[in-house]
């Protein structure tokens, strides 16, 4: 077989030698998503300082902390568990990078793998510094950058997939180009929402009440704008790119995840701050008592965090595939 020429374009569709990178990228995505869920739980339960040292756990090597002690205290279970999953993610990322450099001739993709490794390591470092410095600000940064790393990994899943590798025949589709641009706007908006959400989850001790109010309003207004954009994406795909089932499916996924996210956001608010007064005025008061650390509060809030990352991944996926399929003919047998 004739060796493939090295390409610097990460979106290049040249056929790599091995399917291992794609499988490892999937494994990494499947490890990273629970990592985000458990990380979200750590914040929800305010357990970020449950283990006061880092990289050790109460003086033990991360991997040698006794199982009985780990399972004995809920906060420690969460925080130490978060670290263990993080370490696993780091190891899988190293394997992925090695597999990419050995099995994929696209230099751009290899460098993206290296960037993912840097991202995973930086996340670990940020999380550690948040603990050693007991720094709420770093906890917020840690929460903001996690979805970026996750999206980087899901991007690698897409770029190493067999579908992406299939040769494309040039066929300019203006609809797909426009879709990609709007999806990029949606992805940027969703990320901004994640940053705003992180502000709401980690208000500093000295934050003036006015700032929190401003963030709440921005979060709500931007959600409204995004609803229009996400719905518009599906409409555009359904009207002009009906023959691209991959795009249509992703647009539907994005809308579904977005609706779920809005519902979870409202539920997370209620389980933290109770029903808003305007709601009671309009529809009558509902008897409800907020329970700190309650199961409902923990599950809904953490789900809101996790689904936020999925929204971002879905939007970025739409950007990538719009770009990819803009150059492919409708006859291509994409799944």
């Amino acid at each position, binding site marked *: 077989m004739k060796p493939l020429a090295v390409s610097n374009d990460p979106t290049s569709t040249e056929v790599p030698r091995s399917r291992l990178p794609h499988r490892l990228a999937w494994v990494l995505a499947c490890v990273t998503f629970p990592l985000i869920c458990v990380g979200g739980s750590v914040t929800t339960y*305010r*357990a*970020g*300082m*449950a*283990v*006061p040292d880092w990289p050790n756990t*109460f003086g033990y090597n991360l991997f040698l902390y006794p199982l009985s*002690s780990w399972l*004995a*205290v*809920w*906060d*420690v279970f969460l925080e130490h568990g978060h670290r263990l999953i993080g370490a696993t993610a780091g190891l899988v990322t190293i394997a992925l990078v090695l597999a990419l450099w050995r099995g994929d001739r696209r230099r751009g993709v290899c*460098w993206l793998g*290296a*960037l993912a490794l*840097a991202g995973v390591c*930086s996340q670990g*470092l*940020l999380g550690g*510094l948040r603990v050693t*410095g*007991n*720094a*709420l*600000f*770093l906890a917020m*940064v840690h929460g903001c950058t996690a979805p970026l790393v996750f999206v980087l990994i899901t991007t690698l899943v897409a770029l190493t997939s067999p579908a992406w590798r299939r040769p494309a025949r040039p066929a300019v589709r203006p609809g797909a180009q426009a879709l990609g641009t709007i999806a990029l706007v949606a992805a940027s908006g969703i990320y901004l929402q994640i940053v705003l959400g992180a502000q709401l989850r980690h*208000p*500093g*001790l*000295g*934050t*003036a*009440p*006015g*700032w*929190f*109010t401003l963030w*709440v309003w921005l979060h709500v207004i931007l959600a409204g704008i995004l609803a229009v954009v996400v719905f518009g994406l599906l409409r555009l795909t359904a009207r002009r790119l009906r023959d691209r089932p991959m795009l249509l499916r992703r647009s539907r996924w994005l809308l579904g995840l977005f609706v779920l996210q809005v519902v979870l956001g409202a539920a997370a608010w209620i389980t*933290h*701050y*109770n*029903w808003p*007064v305007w709601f*009671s005025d309009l529809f*009558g*008061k*509902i*008897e*409800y*008592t*907020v*329970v*700190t*650390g*309650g199961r409902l509060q923990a599950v809904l809030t953490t789900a809101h965090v996790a689904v936020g990352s999925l929204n971002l991944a879905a939007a970025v996926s739409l950007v990538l595939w719009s770009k990819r399929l803009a150059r492919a003919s409708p006859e291509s047998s994409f799944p």
Partner: protein
Amino acid sequence: MPPPASRLWPVAMMALALAVAGCGGPPPQFALNIEGRRPQSVSPKQREAVEKALRKLFGTPDEPEVAEETHLRAELLAMAAGPVGGDAEGNQRGLFRRHCVTCHGISGDGAGPTAAVLDPYPRDFRLGLFKYTSTRGGAKPVRRDLRRTLLRGLPGTAMPSFAQLRSGEIEALIEYVKYLSLRGQTEFYLVELVVDGDEPLPLTMEFVVRDGLTPLARSWAAPEENAAEWVVVPPPRPSVATPESLAESVALGRALYAAKPSQCVKCHGPDGSGQGEETELYDDANKRKKGVTPEQTAEIAPRFRLPIQRLRPRDFRQGVFHGGAAPEDLYLRITLGIKGTPMPGAGAAPGVRAVLSPEETWHLVSFIRALGAGAEASPSP
């Protein structure tokens, strides 16, 4: 063309180092409470004198200190104060910052980051006023009152139940709330003494402890030590076991509700909807923000951390009661009122005759509960 990753690494590391260096910051401090005053009306010398006295008596948020006169338990305060942390056995530190500070603020001023979006605002502990207590007018709450609020939360508000916490953690939070309250009241006393009373500086600590801290600490200890005088225990409720007896009690309560002496209709309205003729209702914390004219209110607004917030008399038809919907809870609300709000107590207080007898109060409780269950405020024709 994007720069190679090897060039980005040093930049990223520098940014991270800067972020880490800048995020530690100085330990949080209690803010001096000069709300409602013009900042320039307190001279730097006066400010320093008050802050110094408070630091000596109460320490800092990270290292609280307690004078003997306060009767506060240092070991409980140590659990609640300072930065959040824990050990391998699950013993927690920094409980106040973990669970309370985002709403109540580091000084306990009820103006934490989230406060402005909440209705009602979180409690300002510095006033030493707690709404839902079992103690007579003017008295501080007993420990049991604060424990009940922490364990049950306040239904219909953002105040959560902390029933998931260990009992030791609840006790630590109660102690810290008392600490912030006592500190806040001492702060009021000192600011008034120094700024309004023009007390010569420097302050003598003996004088501050004798005339300020000790009487305030006594006011917290008195209801605990002399419960018979200060704490109200609801007497047994007349039987409402049969539909007839309940209907009779509701009918009697309805008449009492509409009668002038009880004053219920004035704020809660004839139908119990919370829309009476009195609409300009404010609690003690917000009353200070109200000027005589709207212009005056707007002028003094910047002197407060939170905008003025109007009180909403309870809509009994909804059946949601912040202080609890159990008959005993409602009995205490009617008898004792809600401290720091215009809701008066209808029971007897030292030197004040009761507006309603215990039996009448129980009938009123029956009626209010019936409104929540869908009964009409006016009897059917």
